[in-house]
């Protein structure tokens, strides 16, 4: 059985600028991949291509064996995606928004309502279920985006900064949630919080200037008494100096 996420020499160029340069990796069931890198390194672009939003200039990405360009609907069915900034329709209520995504995913009737309820329970949204999303705080908005990604219990989760804007308690909750789901899914999260990588990820990829420069378990990076932060700074700053 092939890995749930397979990325091969994925490349994105904007004009003469290469945002993502031949990135390759695979993520298996049970793995949580932490996607690290300075701002503008190509994290979000890679995730957008993986989610089938941006067509790659070259290379390919497959989710559960379905190519995101050749067979986009099939690939997207197996994917839960939290885009950068957790966009949602501001005028909709939390329930209305989750029902909308559930309907598009083909759920109806009580099954749809059950899934919406479960996703809201997992992300602690019950208290605000009827509020318009635009009236919610940043942390709640982020969790609405997360609920939308989890709703259909997908085998693959791609989360772009899932804990950005959450308070420490909420961060803890989301990490627990990711840890609970990890054994049955392939998960990719991008983050700027290095301690998060230690806390939830089984593997870390550091990307700079569109290239993968490290792909290893976080423990392996911390050898020789260096913290992950020191490793990160050494690798990404070194790259810029070069």
């Amino acid at each position, binding site marked *: 059985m092939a890995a749930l996420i397979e990325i091969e020499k994925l490349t994105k160029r904007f004009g003469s600028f290469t945002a993502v340069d031949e990135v390759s990796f695979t993520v298996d069931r049970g793995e949580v991949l932490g996607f690290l890198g300075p701002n503008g390194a190509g994290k979000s672009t890679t995730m957008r291509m993986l989610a089938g939003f941006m067509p790659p200039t070259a290379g390919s990405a497959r989710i559960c064996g379905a190519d995101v360009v050749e067979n986009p*609907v099939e690939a997207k*069915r197996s994917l839960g995606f939290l885009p950068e900034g957790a*966009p*949602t329709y501001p*005028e*909709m209520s939390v329930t209305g928004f989750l029902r909308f995504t559930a309907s*598009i*995913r083909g759920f109806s009737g009580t099954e749809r309502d059950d899934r919406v309820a479960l996703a809201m329970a997992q992300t602690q949204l019950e208290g605000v279920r009827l509020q318009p999303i635009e009236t919610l705080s940043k942390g709640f908005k982020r969790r609405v985006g997360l609920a*939308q990604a989890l709703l259909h219990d997908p085998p693959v989760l791609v989360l772009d900064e899932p804990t950005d804007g959450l308070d420490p308690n909420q961060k803890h909750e989301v990490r627990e949630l990711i840890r609970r789901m990890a054994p049955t899914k392939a998960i990719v999260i991008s983050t700027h919080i290095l301690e998060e990588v230690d806390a939830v990820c089984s593997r870390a990829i550091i990307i700079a200037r569109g290239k993968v420069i490290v792909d290893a378990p976080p423990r392996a990076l911390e050898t020789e008494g260096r913290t992950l932060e020191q490793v990160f700074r050494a690798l990404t700053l070194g790259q810029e100096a070069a």
Partner: protein
Amino acid sequence: MGGMFRRLGDLLAAGWLMWGPGRNGPLPWHGACVVAKRELAAYFATPVAYVFIVIFLVLAGALTFTLGGFFARGQADLMPFFSFVPWLFLFLVPALTMRLWAEERRHGTIELLLTLPLPQWQAVVGKFLAAWVFCGIALALTFPLWITVNVLGDPDNGVVLTGYLGCLMIAGAYLAVGAAVSAGTKNQVIAFVLAVAICFVFAAAGSPVITEFLSTRLPVLAEVARGLSVADRFGGFTRGVISLRDLVYFGSFIGFWLFVNAVVLDLKKAD
């Protein structure tokens, strides 16, 4: 180029699924309907719907009774109303469509919508349908005019009905143009101005000024201009004639611009 053909393939497949035999499981148009429903609800969740409808009704009423000479004509029909609708829609419809994709881009929800498991054409068609139904609602709310002519005289209600159908066709044509333009820019002002300009070209193409100018110099182009004119086609409807040619014209006009919409969306996704 490859993307273009795939898009065309999608459209053909959609047509086949819609009329063909394979109707098991969720309907192939399911995604488009869900998008349309959400979009329509969004109009009414914001002041957009109310402002649009009120302004449309006020202007339509005012123009019909003043410039249109509704009473002075002494004829029981809705001609004065129908003659202003294309010009009202010329400005109001682009105001409706300018936010269609631009707003999705601004909120970033375009990334969400296009990573949900629905073919892209369904998102395009869904948004268009919502706007079209909305225009239908606005048109339906002009019913007091229809009641008025029926109280005052004895109009041919068949002609009234085809006139309304014609208005709906005009709305559809302008909406398709506006939606395609909106897909190409983040800026709502640009989307509005460009849509008005393009719609104006199609509205004015058949007007005597243009065709006479062309027929003295380039008679071939005059025929083309008349053939492409939205207003010319609309005229038939207001006289009570529904011809297959006009329906095919509006159908392919809308289809073409929705296709452009999908292609532009693909090209501009990156920014």
